[in-house]
């Protein structure tokens, strides 16, 4: 019998740079309490943080949701922003549409999506121009860990 997944969700307010990283920090603490390996925790924190940044910079706010299953977790970032016109372009390192005021803060270097991709086992992006974007990243717990836990 598998249990229902554990879900944790945070809302990102438009323009609230001070709260950035909060979801990542909370997810990290949750995963540590569950005894997830530090490597998976690190990857989840990176994905959540970059997701928060994206939703804030491009999406005008949104939600970050983590769903933990028995052998993997899913991080979903949803915003109601303008959508991504060309995903393959957005996936290129260094490509960014962040406005100047964001770049002046030291963000928007065009590393967000590539970084999420690098730190997750699979990633999908659903986007519709004018409606918004939902990013879904899956992080699997290491097989060694899953085996140890199954006992």
């Amino acid at each position, binding site marked *: 019998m598998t*249990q229902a997944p554990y879900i944790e969700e945070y809302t990102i307010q438009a323009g609230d740079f001070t709260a950035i990283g909060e979801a990542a920090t909370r997810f990290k603490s949750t995963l*540590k309490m569950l*005894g997830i390996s*530090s490597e998976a925790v690190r990857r989840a924190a990176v994905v959540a943080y970059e997701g928060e940044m994206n939703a804030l910079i491009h999406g005008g706010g949104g939600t970050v949701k983590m769903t933990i299953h028995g052998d993997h977790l899913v991080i979903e970032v949803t915003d109601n922003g303008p959508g991504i016109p060309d995903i393959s372009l957005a996936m290129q390192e260094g490509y960014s549409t962040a406005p100047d005021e964001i770049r002046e803060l030291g963000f928007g270097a065009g590393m967000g999506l590539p970084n999420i991709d690098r730190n997750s086992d699979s990633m999908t992006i659903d986007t519709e121009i004018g409606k918004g974007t939902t990013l879904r990243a899956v992080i699997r717990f290491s097989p060694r860990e899953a085996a140890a836990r199954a006992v």
Partner: protein
Amino acid sequence: MAGGVKVKESRCRGCANCIKSCPTEAIRVIDGLMRIIPDLCIDCGECIRSCEGKAITVNEDEWDLIKSREETILMADPTFYVQAAPYSRPRLMKEALESLGLTDMAEHAAIAFDLAAYAAANLIREGTEHRPFISTYCPAVLRLIQINFPELIERILPVESPLETAVTLWRSATGSKKNVTLVSPCPAKATLARNPVGRAKSSLSYVVSVSKVIRDLLAHNVKVTGEGIKTIGRRWLLWSISGGESRHISAFLDKGMTSISVSGLRNTMDLLKELELGRLDGIDFIECRACDLGCIGGTGTYESRFLSHLRLENLETEWLPAQEEMEVIREWHEKGIWRLDTPIPVKERLPLSQNLEEAMAKLREMDTIYAGLPHIDCGACGRPSCRALAEDIVRGQGEETDCIFKLRERISLLSGEIHDLSSRLPHTIHPTKKRRSMA
């Protein structure tokens, strides 16, 4: 296992100041007394700073006992040599100590710090992976990484603390096997001697604070002339302010290096967080110190950190060792005495359960408990936050009524029930008719 922090129970009034100051939430107040969770404590000394009743101190050994021994050998932290105006040069301090019959090893320490910087420079030059590297020097930062940022452990340079290496050099020069006392500016370095990271056993036997020894010297009003004692290098003294170590290391690198030096716990935590999120590309070396301005801001120091800082900023020094010193350093470098013996282990937090499903169930329970708490993190329950109380409850280390708001709710419910019950009467009694008197 004795840590670097000690509580004087008679002075602790059970307030919530220290609970909130702890960066790793390692403090609880139970039955009116401060308690430290040893597995979470990084010996940073924030609780010492926060304690208004001065009940929390550096856990040091008995200085009167140590100095009454036949021979007292001190390995003093660089801060020790810049703290007291009359003795603010290593050779002046040496003279002062000698006149009280104490031995120090400043000249060996100077080489040990050169060696540590040289070793770090070599690792940084050759290392391709794990950049930026992280300094090993501040033991509180090391423990913080072990507990909160285990993913960063591989970036820590495997260089022994020069405070240990200095003792190795001194033993090799003198052939002595006598006990050595560390003069420490902070609780973290006290722990270095008692419970070292990266080596099985410390070469330091006892610990006493910088402030204790300097007070003693000043009380004796020892006069120094500075005559007849060889000048001792000064580079290593700069390790006691933020950025000194980086400066020393980069002197050994032809192309220099790109480094970030921060001090204070908040800066340290923020920087490590950014590093963890992969935001620090192009940086070679990171130097973090848990105390403001560096080790001179430690809770076991004597002088104002601002004055010490001023003195060190104005200290003129040659950053590169002389030719003959360099030969000694290279020789010791080849022998590898600077290298940490064992890898630095992760200190995993105990999960809610070893079984993931069970842990998830407990986490849900914790969320439910947390939802019912007032979320004002008042500390009256003895925990740093409502979330910490909820966690303690699901771990079986507390109950909901530890929260005074929950307690009040329960009392209010109970009093309502008492009121309700008191209005009920047994059937044998008529509600209005008076009972006949027994008389």
